[in-house]
């Protein structure tokens, strides 16, 4: 686009914004003197800012377009290239490991606590990634399973005295069970309908928890949920935090491990195929409904385990922790991080959860920032921060007989 046309477009956009924001930015009613104040300076600012913002926006947009054409071959994200390169993989992973091990000992408790939250979101994100990113089922009620896990620990502990370590595996089973139970009736729906119904289900679970007083203690919630013990030993408050931190780290590693295996198995491929084309998928002999149900149920499994951690960490839960906003936040983690990309989801969770905690000023406008971020990511990086890459297989071909090391079917 020639520069003149660009300027013209930006001018129009600036003008449009000036009209759009006129009522809130310019007009102000002074209720004491009962007069209307016109703040014309604001109008000028809006105009100038929008004008330049639009120019910058266009510039980046064109760069993305150009990049798409040029780098058709190698658009593998940097981190994947690092991980695929044998020379860098070990040092890189070593550094990451060292950082996360040292973290709770270097930083004050407050930071450890925040990091635990972020890591729980990594688990939730990886779980939801199975449902949304891989299987392509838009689930807006994911938080329901998170609540199932949290309440499972709180209630089983309250009534039966079951410990954290007993409830954790139990909650995984419960999550799966709830996934199947909720998924069974709704997974016949597609796309938007599924989204709306899952949203409804999520709210139903929360409303039940809020109103069924005898069962869940209603809006008052459940307090004094014990922290996990270490072979019967109870740590003091600070050490408990560190202990939970390492439990979460272990769980996150386990999640990554299993989700990665699932992704590169028969069932994982079926999920992606289902997301890409339902009819072709069925014609390939894949049971559509069963495949969707497994995705839904397995996603729920991780959510429930995340819920147990959450309950153990905060020691107090009430239904307000499980609103639709929680579902939306987890969804943002997946979408902004990169649908179907485990590394992307991890990055997404860390960025989206840690940033608002540290930028307290922004925290107020969390949803606004998420929204803006969403738009920016969708426009400039439609595959998310770190997009998913597919596994590459190498084969011994007749032209390269000297490549003895790489056998049929092994992958790099």
């Amino acid at each position, binding site marked *: 686009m020639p520069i003149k046309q660009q300027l013209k477009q930006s001018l129009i956009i600036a003008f449009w914004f000036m009209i759009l924001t006129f009522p809130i930015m310019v007009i102000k009613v002074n209720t004491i003197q009962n007069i209307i104040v016109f703040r014309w300076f604001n109008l000028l600012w809006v105009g100038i800012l929008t004008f330049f913002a639009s120019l910058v926006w266009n510039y980046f947009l064109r760069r993305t377009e150009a990049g798409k054409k040029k780098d058709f071959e190698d658009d593998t994200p940097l981190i994947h290239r690092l991980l695929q390169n044998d020379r860098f993989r070990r040092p890189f992973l070593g550094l990451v490991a060292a950082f996360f091990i040292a973290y709770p000992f270097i930083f004050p408790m407050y930071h450890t606590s925040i990091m635990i939250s972020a890591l729980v979101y990594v688990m939730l994100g990886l779980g939801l990634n199975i449902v949304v990113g891989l299987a392509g089922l838009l689930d807006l009620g994911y938080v329901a399973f998170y609540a199932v896990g949290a309440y499972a620990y709180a209630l089983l502990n309250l009534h039966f005295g079951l410990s954290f370590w007993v409830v954790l595996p139990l909650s995984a089973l419960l999550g799966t069970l709830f996934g199947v139970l909720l998924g069974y009736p709704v997974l016949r729906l597609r796309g938007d309908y599924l989204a709306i119904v899952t949203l409804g289900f999520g709210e139903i679970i929360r409303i039940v928890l809020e109103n069924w007083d005898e069962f869940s203690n209603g809006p008052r919630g459940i307090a004094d949920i014990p922290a996990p013990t270490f072979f019967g030993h109870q740590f003091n408050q600070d050490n408990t935090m560190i202990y939970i931190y390492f439990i979460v780290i272990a769980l996150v590693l386990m999640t990554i491990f299993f989700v990665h295996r699932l992704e590169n198995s*028969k069932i994982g491929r079926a999920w992606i*195929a289902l997301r*890409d084309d339902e009819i072709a998928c*069925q*014609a*390939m002999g894949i049971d559509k409904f069963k495949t969707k149900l497994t995705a839904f149920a397995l996603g729920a499994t991780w959510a429930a385990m995340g819920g147990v951690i959450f309950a153990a960490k905060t020691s107090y839960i009430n239904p307000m922790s499980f609103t639709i906003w929680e579902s939306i936040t987890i969804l943002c983690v997946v979408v902004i991080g990169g649908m179907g990309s485990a590394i992307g989801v991890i990055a997404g969770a860390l960025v989206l959860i840690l940033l608002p905690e540290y930028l307290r000023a922004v925290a107020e406008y969390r949803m606004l920032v998420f929204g803006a971020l969403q738009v920016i990511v969708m426009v400039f990086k439609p595959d998310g921060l770190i997009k998913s890459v*597919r596994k590459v*297989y190498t*084969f011994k071909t007749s032209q390269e007989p000297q490549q003895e090391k790489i056998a049929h079917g092994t992958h790099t």
Partner: protein
Amino acid sequence: MEPILNVKNLTMKFGGLKALDDVSIAIEKGQIAALIGPNGAGKTTFFNCITGIYDPSMGDVQITPPGKSTQSLRGLKPNYVTERGVARTFQNIRLFHGMTVLENVMIGRHCRLSSGIIKAMLRPPSQREEEKKAVYDSYEILEKIGLDKYVNEMAVNLSYGAQRRLEIARAMATEPFLLLLDEPAAGMNPKETKELDDLILWLRDNENLTILLIEHDMKLVMSLSDRIHVVDYGKKIAEGNPQEIKANPEVIKAYLGEESDDA
């Protein structure tokens, strides 16, 4: 001997429209059969009824897999039809665009693999062995179809002709005995069409397949087919070998005014 595919009095109604009206077609083992007819005649609908994507309003679809007894496909879901050995390709290419060429073929292996979720998570030796074999088998199929140089390409990046071949490779991966091809040559250049011709013959002769294809390219149809079935407005109007079909006045009338490819 029983025909390998026996479609009896198939009728498919969409509201008031009879897309198929009492169509009966039988296909013998080892045949290359063609289903032709003008646009909108109901050919794709016929495939959809066989493969369980549509549930026909009336009639029956029976198959007799080699060495097995006759069974009905009526009312089966598409994935069970595939499991029973009937594979298909699509007129409007339906590849999995988020996957590589190899993975597209591996999806076809899905119904022949046994490892479930638990095994996928724990990866016991049996599962590893099976996965490795699935990769190997899929690669072998790609070699046969001549797409092995694209194994790790994303499926969307292939040329149109290669995408159509990949659809065939993917269908082959399900180990069918009957292959249904919906306009496999559409969008191909003459050279690609010739290669397709060879491929279809090769599939019949070396993979022991029976093939039913829908095609508008009359040259291809006439050279390949042992038997041709013609439908028009949902009704079957003729059946015979290429010579008979060429001379059939009904068929000529149906195609009259139509720019068929050999006209």
